């Protein structure tokens, strides 16, 4: 193709066009539309002092109050964090953390006393926190089968390849498959109020309502629909390797058992960062007059099942109240106050600069 740039139509280009005689020639004049002539009406904003400086002050005035509000709200939230990893000799859980094996049948329990200086009003939320636990690792994140968890019976018996190496155990499909499910947090935490009279009162913990609505009702479904006979439904599957019980024995309540067990669902919602907390239980407020957790001393009883010391992880228990903006979060308020002040400050500086050197920019605007 040597003559690729040659356009045969060009060859007779002139003949048809030239010649002033042809009065009936179609005019090739481009259309006079605003679009084609690039004359579309347009808004042409310029960064002038009149727009920029008010913006800065506006941001400042807007952010600082919000920041203060956030900070105050955050400060009113009460939060208590207890590390029960047991890496210290002094820690009550030291023994449990030392003598660990996945297969041990005898649960190891440790109790941690603590004291609340202030009463906790309204609902109190109980979290477990893990550190240095890479729930966001790529291989970890993808190691699940969402259609199995959604109750697809085909996937139940044939888990996705993504679940490898936790897809099959002894030729039987694992339900739920994958590394995430396999590593599910299985410590049991219980809370006791130490009455001043010496008795221990167990604090009732609600284990439902801790997962996302869509997770509980859409994303996770048990196979076999509403069939309450889980044993039959899960027949032919194996429990995850690390689990002590099969998935259908996680809870006695059929609405909170199997794949729709909320502890399981919460675990399956992987964390974004290696240090994270997950909602464990809710302590419902019973009485309007009494605080949910009155001031006093408490005991945390941990059934220590979950090993973290191998990878230098930490385990925590967190008690927290909550406001309209969620849990304790002082950073947000401080950040807002900082940004707001910086804006305000910048606004002032720019105003000064503008005032001092403004003439030049002024005249430039005019002459443009």
């Amino acid at each position, binding site marked *: 193709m040597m003559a690729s740039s040659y356009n045969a139509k060009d060859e007779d280009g002139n003949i048809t066009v030239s010649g002033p005689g042809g009065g009936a020639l179609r005019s090739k004049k481009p259309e006079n539309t605003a679009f084609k002539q690039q004359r579309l009406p347009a808004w042409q904003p310029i960064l002038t002092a009149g727009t920029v400086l008010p913006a800065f002050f506006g941001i400042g005035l807007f952010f600082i109050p919000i920041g203060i509000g956030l900070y105050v709200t955050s400060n009113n939230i009460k939060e208590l964090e207890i590390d029960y990893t047991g890496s210290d000799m002094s820690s009550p859980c030291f023994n449990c953390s030392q003598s660990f094996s996945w297969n041990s049948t005898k649960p190891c329990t440790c109790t941690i006393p603590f004291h609340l200086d202030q009463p906790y009003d309204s609902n109190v939320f109980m979290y477990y926190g893990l550190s240095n636990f890479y729930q*966001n690792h790529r291989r970890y994140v993808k190691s699940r089968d969402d259609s199995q968890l959604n109750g697809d019976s085909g996937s139940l018996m044939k888990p996705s390849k993504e679940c490898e190496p936790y897809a099959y155990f002894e030729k039987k499909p694992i339900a739920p498959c994958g590394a995430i499910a396999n590593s599910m947090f299985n410590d049991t935490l219980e809370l006791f109020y130490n009455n001043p009279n010496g008795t221990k009162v167990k604090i009732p913990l609600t284990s439902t309502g801790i997962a996302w609505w869509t997770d509980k009702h859409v994303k996770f479904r048990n196979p076999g629909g509403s069939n309450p006979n889980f044993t039959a439904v899960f027949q032919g599957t194996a429990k995850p390797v690390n689990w002590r019980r099969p998935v259908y024995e996680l809870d006695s309540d059929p609405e909170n058992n199997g794949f729709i067990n909320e502890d399981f669902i919460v675990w399956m919602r992987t964390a*974004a960062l290696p240090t994270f907390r997950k909602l464990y239980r809710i302590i419902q407020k019973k009485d309007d007059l009494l605080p949910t957790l009155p001031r006093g001393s408490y005991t945390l009883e941990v059934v220590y099942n979950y090993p973290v010391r191998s990878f230098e992880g930490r385990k925590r228990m967190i008690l927290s109240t909550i406001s309209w903006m969620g849990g304790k979060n002082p950073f947000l308020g401080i950040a807002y106050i900082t940004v707001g002040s910086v804006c305000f400050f910048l606004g002032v500086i720019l105003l000064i600069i503008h005032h001092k050197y403004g003439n030049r920019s002024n005249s430039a605007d005019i002459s443009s």
Partner: protein
Amino acid sequence: MFRKRPPPEEERRVRANDREYNEKFQYASNCIVTSKYNIITFLPVNLFEQFQEVANTYFLFLLILQLIPQISSLSWFTTIVPLALVLSITAVKDATDDYFRHKSDNQVNNRQSQVLIRGSLQNEKWMNVRVGDIIKLENNQFVAADVLLLFSSEPHGLCYIETAELDGETNMKVRQSVSVTSEPGDPNNLASFDGEVVCEPPNNKLDRFCGTLYWRDKKYTLTNQNMLLRGCVLRNTEACYGLVIFAGPDTKLMQNSGRTKFKRTSIDRLMNTLVLWIFGFLVCMGVILAVGNAVWEREVGSLFQSYLPWDPPVDNFLFSAFLSFWSYVIILNTVVPISLYVSVEVIRLGHSYFINWDQQMFCSQCNTAAAARTTTLNEELGQVEYIFSDKTGTLTQNIMSFNKCSINGQTYGEVADPLGPQPKKLDFTPFNPLADPGFCFYDDTLLESVKVGDSHTHEFFRLLSLCHTVMSEEKSEGELVYKAQSPDEGALVAAARNFGFMFCSRTPGTITIREMGQPVTYTLLAILDFNNIRKRMSVIVRNPEGRIRLYCKGADTVLLERLHPCNQELMNITSDHLNEYAADGLRTLALAYRDLTEDEWEAWAESHRCAGKATSCREDRLAATYDQIEQDMMLLGATAIEDKLQEGVPETIAILSLANIKIWVLTGDKQETAVNIGYSCKMLTDDMTEVFIISGHTVQSVRQELRRARERMIELSRTRDGGKEEGTGGWSEACFMGNGVREGQGRDVAGGVKQLQCSPPPPSNLTDNISGEFALVINGHSLAHALEADMETEFVSTACACKAVICCRVTPLQKAQVVELIKKHKKAVTLAIGDGANDVGMIKSAHIGVGISGQEGIQAALASDYSFSQFRFLQRLLLVHGRWSYLRMCRFLCYFFYKNFAFTMVHFWFGFFCGFSAQTVYDQYFITLYNIVYTSLPVLAMGIFDQDVPDHRSLEYPKLYEPGQLNLLFNKREFFICIAQGIYTSVVLFFVPYTVLSDATQSTGVPLADHQTFAMTTATALVIVVSVQIALGTGFWTVINHVCVWGSLGSYFTIMFALHSQTLFRIFPSQFHFVGSAQSTLLQPVVWLTIALATAICIVPVLAVRFLKLALRPRLSDTVRYTQLVRQKKRKAVSRSAGGGWRSAGSVSEGRLGTRGGSRRSGYAFAHQEGFGELITSGKNMRLSSLALATFASRHSSSWIDTLRRKKHTHTHTPPSTSEECSSAPSCVSGSVPPLSNSSSILGGSQDTPIEEDVGTASAQNTQTVPTSSAQTQPALAPDSEATAPQDSALALSTGIFTSPAVRYHGGDSPGGWTVSLGTVQEALFGWKGIAVHTNASNSPGAPSVAKETSQLE
């Protein structure tokens, strides 16, 4: 297509009328295929071509990587969707292109031609014509293939062709058949013609052919003179027959249209470099993360195996790191997004369309709009530093008009008072019914003088009608058309015709003219032809009374030496006139005669015959005899011809040079002509410090001249700089005057600028510390030396210090060499503009080639990247479209890199928190759609539609063009700033959510730090931040921008909610992991607080920096500085107009003009070739019809004249175009013009009187004169022009005073609205700035408000 090519031909053998014989050689058929694909081959071939692009292959490679599960960090569709989109867009574009090629191929292949088959003529399609066929061609037909001319209907086997398509020359060329084949005289004999041609194989040399014809055992040599090439058009020849030698792809036309060199813009190159750097950066990041991965897997991952065991194939950390490297390459590849190249193409395409659509680059006379023939160079139009221009046809129209003359010491045609009313165009019809209505002359005293029968005047025009080599031709009955070798001659003969001395016809021995209506036949005794050395031509004729007279016209320098001594006094007067004419930039000729006695003639004729017969040194001897008789002549007078510039050339050049673009004129013309044009188009001005002329013939002399020029420049600029300090007094004075004008306007805005403008002038920082305006004129032969390797730098350094450079007598090759030279040494963007085939070389070698699709065919336009029909469109192309394109492209690239870095680098930071596992932050659908949906349209809209200043502003302030030349808007520094900004944004976008969300919970107590919430928050913040950024970056918010920006944001939320909906999840549970995330995340106040915080942190610094830049270092400072420059100019304009307009500027600087006068005078500029005299006297080119025309004069009747005139009107010229032709005379064209020149000349002329008054009176005048004059001159257009008249008159005000863009802006619509004589342009140019505020008002709201403005002024 797939047929095996035969081995290259050694020679070609063709036997006429013998298809079987010719078949053996498998010559290409006449079918041309320019298309690339057919339906079946399209997909594979196109895909193959596309994957030759590195970028596409790279993405294919990524796609393959993603199919490996251990590496795949992203789903395969994140790459394949954009890739498929890109490939299909390109494929669709290629397919449409090819479809049109198919269509035009078909059209050409199916043209009909007549082929002689077995003795009879048969109609055949072009594609079926074979080598060896004899085809018949008729007048005005295209030649179907390269044919050997066998027979012509014209005598002597001559035929005429026009080769405009081929080499761009419009003049006719003569081809002659081999005498032996034309002998039979009967085309039917050709059926039995069985000659065999042996010739060279196909090549692309248009001017060469060598072959041999074997016929009847005889050999005949064939040359290019015998060939008719494909692409030519047959003219003036009834029919001819030819033997097809080369067909289809073998024809010279096709061989010449090879693949054009692919041009890349500097932005392209920069972009490629940057993309490579980014690749390097990508690899670096990959390595860092891979090392991190290795460390992590060893330190943490190995311990973490109880929860996350290593994959069986990945059993050690090193291998894992290796895989993670590739995984990160996949994730981070979005720093070089696949959509970059496509977006750039789309933007350029859009810009090209805007060029094509621009009404202000549409020429209504030739009905051609500007065309961007390549769509890849637009932004480079905003960076041009050097323009190389052809002269003829580009700067000038190549139309000569008889403008002035001096007869017997009396000058005619001078417009008496430049300030007075424009004189009326002379109407010749009552006096001379045969006059050419296209001829314009303004001085009726000359006509009076002819009428009263002044003998000198009569003799003057008699000479003009006799002494030339023009051929006349009777086109149709009675319609006389002159065929002149050069337009100068044509203009002179036409002038004589109008003044009653009409050249009718010639035979080899006679010339018939009609003197004042009476046919007179002169016996032509001799033509003493023109040549470059003699610079004159003469004829010797015997009038009917038997008196012999020699008429001579020639360059005044030559002719004035040969006058009889008694002419001394007349010579002095005429010499003065000649000086005047030359100062006006006119081409001058002196005319003289000499009476010869019979004896003298006999004696001379004898010696002439001897000389003619001489075998050795024939030329010299002839010249000597000519010289001998051209003595002692009597001076008749002088003529002045205007080489008409194209419209708007001087002010286009002025504006372009204000934009710091250097303009070089490269012309094949002589030095005198070129310099003349240089002056008339204001490239050279009398204000120039010095004009250097390099005309040495040897290397040494050229080197010396160049060095001397440079030394002189340095010396002069030193003295100039020294003098500047003393000149400040005058400077402030000028400021005062300028402000006087401004305040007279009553514009308070002007007051603001005032102070600024009176600050001292900026130090001149011209290249090499040379200040002052210099010009260089270099001759072709000197240029040849200057282009030698060791002289190059010398030449470049001298030439580039000059404001204007004129190279004359250059060959097409030299033109290209000069362009290459600048490209090589200056690293500047060059633009070449030309219209002829001789410009193709430089058009192709320059960065940007612009073709004027004008008179000289379309060869240049075909080779060009941009084509339009008027030189003046160049300023719009560069200063408006180019500037915008550059600006848009730069802004686009800055933003594009920014947004992708902001997007991608988040993954990098996340890598440190996810064990370097190549986990993505975002949802995979977000990654797929981010570049092609969420952020593509706003940036495209900005890249296509953005404007910083409106178009007329950038023409008013040419300095705005400079950032492009200096490449300020997008360079490596800007790139790094963008990248840094992008990285900063990514840091904010990652760490703000990180710190906020890590401990935050929903209001239901559920933690927010899960991966999906984090992804949603970051993604939403990202989309919002980049949208705010584009909003800040967009300077011109049209509806489309609004739709794109808001639409993109809207589409983000819509698509997110859709993808996270339960419906989709129920259908594909394993594909949509993010079900419900959008709902539960975006309802959280904390999330929105986080997004707002991140946005503020990203945007506030940017806003502050931009504001500071605007306040402290405004980019518009260029503009401000520019207004100052205009003041400076204005001062000059004032001193000029005090001297009575620019024309007499010469008198101001008399001393200097005197030294230069020689070069400007005697622009004896016959674009003439030698030898036509001989052709005439031999009678070879005489056609029977034209011989018959000799009797033409006695054949007419009054009714015949009527038909003739009617024909002329209806057939050849429509009235508007007629008036167009004499656009040098504004008054004859349309109502808008006379007031225009009036007002401006008033402004220029009387500086002291307040402006309002002038303007007021001018406008009052205008409104009165306009309707009447337009009705008179253009009856046909009367309704139309009346409608526009008020508008025009109002405009005339603004245009005249202010700026020429405004003239074009409105005037372009009405024919002739754009007719500004040089003087007005000049004044308008210097005057416009003073009232710049007005232009704004007059341009934007349109005509009515302008009218209002005017009345306010009154």
